[in-house]
């Protein structure tokens, strides 16, 4: 019986997390004056429970890769968070968002330029972004001269 309950629970968690993903926006999307200095804001979708989310800034400076852990700031609206710029100005940088909701995962590589969010150059995944995907995003930004 316990096995059936466990299977049902796992199935329910998976179904509830179906379509688990990130939505990113400019700080104005948060409708919260405290977000105005953020690099961007984001929310998770498709997760009925509280998802776990981490963020790191991934950079490429003079051909050297580096990584900076970022703090995610919760905002007034439930499930909406701000990411503040906390990485060097030199080189190309993206923010790697990783979320888990039960057994489901979601990822986003968010490109941020001097003027803020680069929506067209941000990519979203139904999994944790791989190192290769992050490297590719940084290489694309470098080839376009985005700093």
């Amino acid at each position, binding site marked *: 019986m316990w096995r059936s309950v466990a299977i049902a629970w796992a199935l329910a968690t998976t179904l509830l997390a179906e379509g688990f993903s990130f939505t990113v*926006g*400019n700080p104005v999307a948060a*409708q919260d004056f405290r977000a*105005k*200095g953020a690099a961007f804001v984001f929310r998770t979708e498709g997760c009925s429970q509280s998802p776990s989310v981490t963020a790191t800034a991934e950079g490429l400076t003079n051909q050297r890769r580096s990584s900076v852990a970022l703090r995610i700031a919760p905002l*007034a609206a439930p499930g909406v968070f701000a990411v503040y710029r906390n990485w060097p100005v030199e080189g190309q940088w993206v923010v790697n968002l990783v979320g888990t909701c039960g057994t489901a995962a979601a990822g986003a590589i968010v490109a941020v330029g001097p003027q*803020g969010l680069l929506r067209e150059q941000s990519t979203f995944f139904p999994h944790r972004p791989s190192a290769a995907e992050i490297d590719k995003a940084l290489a694309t930004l470098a080839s376009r001269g985005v700093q």
Partner: protein
Amino acid sequence: MLTSHVSNRLAAYVDGEVTPSDVRTIERHLAECARCRTDHQQLRLAAATLKALPMVPVPDNIWPLIERGLREASPTVPPVRPRVWRWAAAGAMAVVIAVVAIGRWGTATRWEVRVLEGSPVVASRVLTDGGQVGAGDWIETDARARATIDVGAIGTVEIAPDSRVRVTATRANEHRLTLERGRIHAVISAPPRIFFVDTASATAVDLGCEYTLNADEAGDGVLRVTRGWVSFQTDGLESLVPAGAACATHRRVGPGLPYFEDATDSFRQAVNDFGFQKIASESLNTMLAEARARDTLTLWHLLTRVSEADRARVYDRMAALTAVPPAVSRESVLKLDPRTLQRWREELAWTW
């Protein structure tokens, strides 16, 4: 002519929850009815005060205390007189605290002014270094002068050359300037609706932002927002302008449609023509044809400023550009239901 009083609709009006036609009715009434104007002022003050209160974490022990209180107030226990007095005393204390807080909130202060360049005239005196201004004082810069004001503790306003600015109110709940002519750049870190700048044709209401505003004596001007949101408004007409967007205002018309500055030239020209040049039909066609997903900012504002037939066209174009949330129905949008419009705007803002 006065119609029936509008007191019972003022709270919804202050919260922006009434339809545009109700807004017009209420504002016509407020212009003529001193009693309702007083009610309105009190509601606005209360709303601003509440919005400015900081959020504080709820103590962990609050629920056990509430539960214990509920158990003690069980209907099987007859109410005893001392508890009534305890509640009365608590109520009286709350009133005293509120009165003291609002009193302090309403106290006027003086603001620091610093000279950045040249010799601005501040409160009728030529300033070479720094000084202070209070409500009623003017600050005037010539072609070579610039100055900056520390707006209480909430931010700074830089006054560009050839500008004339009046300090209108310096209360904690109302920091207000009048830009008679010229240009200012404001950087404000405060809860929304604490900082205001009046021009001859519109008022810029800070919703947590950084912006540049220029205006002339007649009321023509442009607002450009670099961070956060500004509400640009006059007499029931409101344009919400987010970072990256601009909004022109014209004499006798008020604020036009906000637009993102990276929109196409023809889109921006159409925005200007629609608002101020009276060639609405042609410019509406151009806006609908040229709009990108991000330009739903402009289209959302169009919804309340076009005829019912054109509103359907605007809705359809917006629905083609972005996914309409399930809670937003075409019918409610076409009826200009305030809650639906607000919900849609908040969702659209993720693309702005």
